[in-house]
Structure formats: C-alpha cells, structure tokens
C-alpha cells in the first residue's frame, strides 16, 4: 500500500506473516470462541482473536471453583475445558469466518504426538491464520511442567509442530523461567514465527476460615495488573534474545500499559483479564495508542516497538 499519507497514523503490524490492522489482540481463554462477545463489541476492530486452548478430543477441565479474585488480579484454573478440534471447527469456525479479523488458535496436547496432530488438523482449516502453541498452562501437569520449562521437551514439541503446519507458529512461553531468553532463542531456532508472553503465573489462594484452597484445582494461574511488571521484564529479556516479533501479554488494562510492553519490545499485545472488567478494552487501547502517537508525532507503530532507552 503506497497511498498512506505521511501524516496518517499506521497501526498495522505483521506478526510472523499475519497482518493485523492494530497491534491489539485479545488473549486466549478470556474471549471464549467469539460468540460470547459478539453482541458487545465490533470484532473487525481487533488486531486478532486468539481463541481458548484446543486439544485433540476436547476435555471437561477442572472442578469448580475455577477462578478467584485476588489483589489486582485473578487466579484461574479452568483446566483448558474445550470441545476438541472437531467440535471447535464445526461449532465456531463458521461464525468466526464472518469477520475481517485473523483467528489464532491456541493449541495444546498431552504428548508431542497430540500437539503434532492438532497442528496438522488446523493446517487444513480455512480461516485459521496461526497457531499459538500453549506450552505454559499452569493448570494441567503436561502444559508447563513437561513442555514449558524443560528445554529439551520444549524444543521437541516445537520442532514437531513446525513440521506439521505452514501456519504462523507462535509458542506461548511460561512465565516462571529464570532464563527466558534461552527459551525464546530455542523457539526461534525451532522455526517459530513469533512469541507470545506471558501466560498466567502459578499461584494459589487459601480460604483461611475453612483452610481449603480457593480453587477446585488447588493451584491456578495469576493474571491481571498484578503481574504486569513481571511480564514487561520478561518481554524485555526475550526481545534481547530473538529477532522474531513478540506479543506482549499480562495485565494490560489501558493504552499506557500496552505501550509499556511495546516500548519494551513487543510488536503486538493481547488483552486478557481486562476483557472481564471491560469488554471494550482492546478498542480503547487502540484509540489510546493512536492518540499517544499523535502526541509524540509518530506515524508508524514500528517507531514505538523496542525503543526503550536503557
């Protein structure tokens, strides 16, 4: 497109081959499979929609209670309840294809083979732009302990998935890694097109009166503004290690928060928990980024990304 006037603001980004109108996406697990928010907001104004984690055959997830509110955050232990690849494609893809917005499917499995199989199936599905590979869910044993924090398994699962799909591949990293740079680098080497970080952080809350955990699953993942400074740090670390674009996630409530991630090195951001507070957050963040750029006389969002002066 060479008709962009120089004093127009261009928010479009290219995340590993997926072209988005705005760098502001919605995060997996906080936006369902789409229909839930369709009455409330205009999907065409989103950068991308990342749907809730899908595995091969689907699963019922964890017992209740599944979420608990904590100081400036939320702990969730949904347990990746999902209808499986077939159920998702049949029930939700026709709906999602109506919109002019990239759909990224968050995928997971209990074995390397299951990850591969899920990736292979989606490779054939019309309307899917990319796969976010969840190797970091704090709520299933296999998610984090096995694939997300063990460097060998991490490489194995990503390499395997890479061979089975031409879709944009976006590993989603675990947040409790003391050396996130090495995982980011490994992902890049395995052929990842972009990275998502962070997932919610392992956490726990106990009802002191009953002495029972507040979640059916005992532990869960902390999300929301409480984790933002931790997430910004990890994005900044990872940005130093790789060239592929990053999607910054973690406690973004407004445009300033999003800009913090982008200045630290994220090319896009995803809104998670804030959707529960205000389903219109993504649009407000896009508008806020636009006015920030106006105020700072910036014309392209690239002039923001990774510009932190350290």
């Amino acid at each position, binding site marked *: 497109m060479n008709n962009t006037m120089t004093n127009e603001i261009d928010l479009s980004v290219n995340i590993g081959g997926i072209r988005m109108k705005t760098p502001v996406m919605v995060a997996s*697990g*906080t*936006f*369902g499979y789409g*229909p*839930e*928010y369709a*009455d*409330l907001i205009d999907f065409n104004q989103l950068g991308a929609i990342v749907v*809730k984690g899908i595995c091969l055959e689907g699963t*019922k*997830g964890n*017992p*209740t*209670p*599944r*979420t*608990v*509110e904590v*100081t*400036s*955050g*939320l702990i*969730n232990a*949904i347990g990746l*309840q999902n209808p499986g690849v077939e159920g998702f494609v049949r029930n939700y893809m026709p709906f999602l294809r109506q919109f002019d917005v990239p759909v990224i499917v968050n995928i997971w499995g209990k074995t390397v083979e299951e990850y591969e199989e899920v990736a292979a199936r989606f490779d054939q599905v019309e309307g899917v732009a990319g796969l976010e590979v969840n190797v970091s869910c704090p709520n299933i044993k296999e998610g984090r302990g096995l694939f997300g924090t063990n460097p060998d398994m991490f490489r194995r699962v990503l390499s395997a998935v890479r061979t089975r799909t031409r879709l944009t591949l976006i590993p989603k990293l675990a947040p409790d890694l003391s050396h996130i740079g090495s995982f980011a680098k490994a992902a890049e080497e395995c052929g990842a097109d972009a990275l998502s970080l962070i997932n919610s952080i392992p956490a726990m809350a106990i009802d002191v009166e009953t002495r029972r955990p507040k979640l059916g699953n005992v532990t869960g993942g902390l999300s*929301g*503004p409480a984790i933002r400074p931790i997430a910004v740090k990890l994005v900044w670390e990872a940005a130093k290690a790789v060239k592929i674009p990053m999607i910054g996630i973690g406690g973004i409530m407004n445009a300033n928060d999003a800009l913090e991630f982008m200045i630290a090195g994220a090319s896009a951001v995803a809104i998670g*928990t*804030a*959707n*529960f*507070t*205000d*389903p*219109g957050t993504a649009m407000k963040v896009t508008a806020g980024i636009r006015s920030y750029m106006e105020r700072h006389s910036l014309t392209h969002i690239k002039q923001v990304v990774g510009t932190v002066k350290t």
Partner: protein
Amino acid sequence: MQLEEARIVQHTEVQGGYRLLVMDAPGIAPQVKPGQFVHLKVPHLGEALLRRPFSIFKAGEGRLSILYKSIGQGTNTMKYLQPGESLDLIGPLGNGFPIPAEDTLPALVAGGYGMAALYLAARTAPVRGLAFFGGRKSDDILCVDEFEALGWEVRIATDDGTRGKKGLVTAVLDEWIGQKGPAVVPEFFACGPNPMLKAVADRAAAGGWKAWVSVDRNMCCGVGACLTCVQKIRTPDGGWTWHRVCREGPVFESREVVWDE
C-alpha cells in the same frame, strides 16, 4: 445483551443492609425477561477487577432496579453510590425463568435476596400462586407487600423466628405441600442459596413436579467466555456436561442439575 452506562436515579436502604438501586438504562431495560441479571462494574473498587452479578429486580419504562445486600468488598463499596453517578452494566444476561405451564399453580421459593430474581416472574405469571420466603431473620424478608399487591399469597419462615414460622423456608413449603389437595399441581420457581435450591428440587422430584432453580455461582466474565461459572448438567446418555450458569443458566430445570458441589 449490551454494554450500557446507566445513570443512578435512586439509591435507598430498604432494611437490614439491603439496598435498592434504581437506574436509567433505556438500552437494557426493555429487553429484560424475568430471572435475568446484569453484570455491574463497581466504580472505585481499587484492587478488585471483576464485575458483580445482580438479578434484575424490576424493569420498565427505561429503568432497571436491583436489590442487593452488602456482604463484601464490592457490595460495601456500592453503598456509597450516589444518584447522578453512572454505572457500567452488561445485560440483560442469562436465560431467565420460563412462563409457568398451564394447569399448574406457580410456587415461588426465595431465600434472602432471591426474591429479587422472582419479582418479575411474579408479575408476569398468568396465574397467581404462592410465594415462600425464607431468611435468617425478619430483616431478610423483603417486599412482601409488593408480592401481595400482585395477588400472591406469601408464607414466611425465618431461622430465628423473628418473622413467620421459625425454621427453614422448606418448613412452610412442606406444610403447604402436606395440606394442598392432590388436584393442585405446583410448579416451583426458586432462587436462593444452593442448599435451598436442592431442597426444593428434592420436593419436586418426590412429587413428580417441575422446579426451576436459579443457581448462584461466582462469576467472572458473565457472558460465557471464561468458563468459570460452570454447573454439572445431566446429559440424555446418563452422563453430565458443564453448562455455563451465566449463559445457559442461571435457571435450570432442577432434574437436570447434578447437585454434587
């Protein structure tokens, strides 16, 4: 379902910590069905992020009201809301109560603020029946006059006996079930704590009657996206599946509900 900035027009204490909040909500109000709820963003809630769900007590002429009790951080902060302030709502949400079937006598069963969820059902029911109200003490028994004004016969029980019969609401319910003739086929509409709902479900199952129960579950998104508020619901094959209380509920036919939590 929509997002709406509602304007508070009235905010008054009813009794014993229960408050009535009336809002101008011309978008949401006309869409409301009995038993639905709104998801309300409490302003100035500091480090608490989530909205709070409240049954729609009344709706009409572009206005909505809720009746709430202060029990925690959110509802305590709500006390300070002033007429004129705006409130961010999502609603109406949930499926709501069905219209009572023909040839049945509707029987409402409410625990505490449960009566708020039942008022619109009481107003729109084609036949007036009985309303059973329970609570811990007399302060928990609300709006009896209003139900009576609609033509309902109200029977009351309180744990401490300060109003009506002493005991659980099931005490007055059982009394009536024992007295009523066999020709009277009740259909229950219940809202209150989950143990009360189960007790009503048991009565209904024993008598072979229908009971519609509005389940109270902690909520997060309120619209079906997060899978927090799930309830086990029987499937035809003898198994179960999760239904979202905020989307497929909050009202379920009691025989569908698996009461294991």
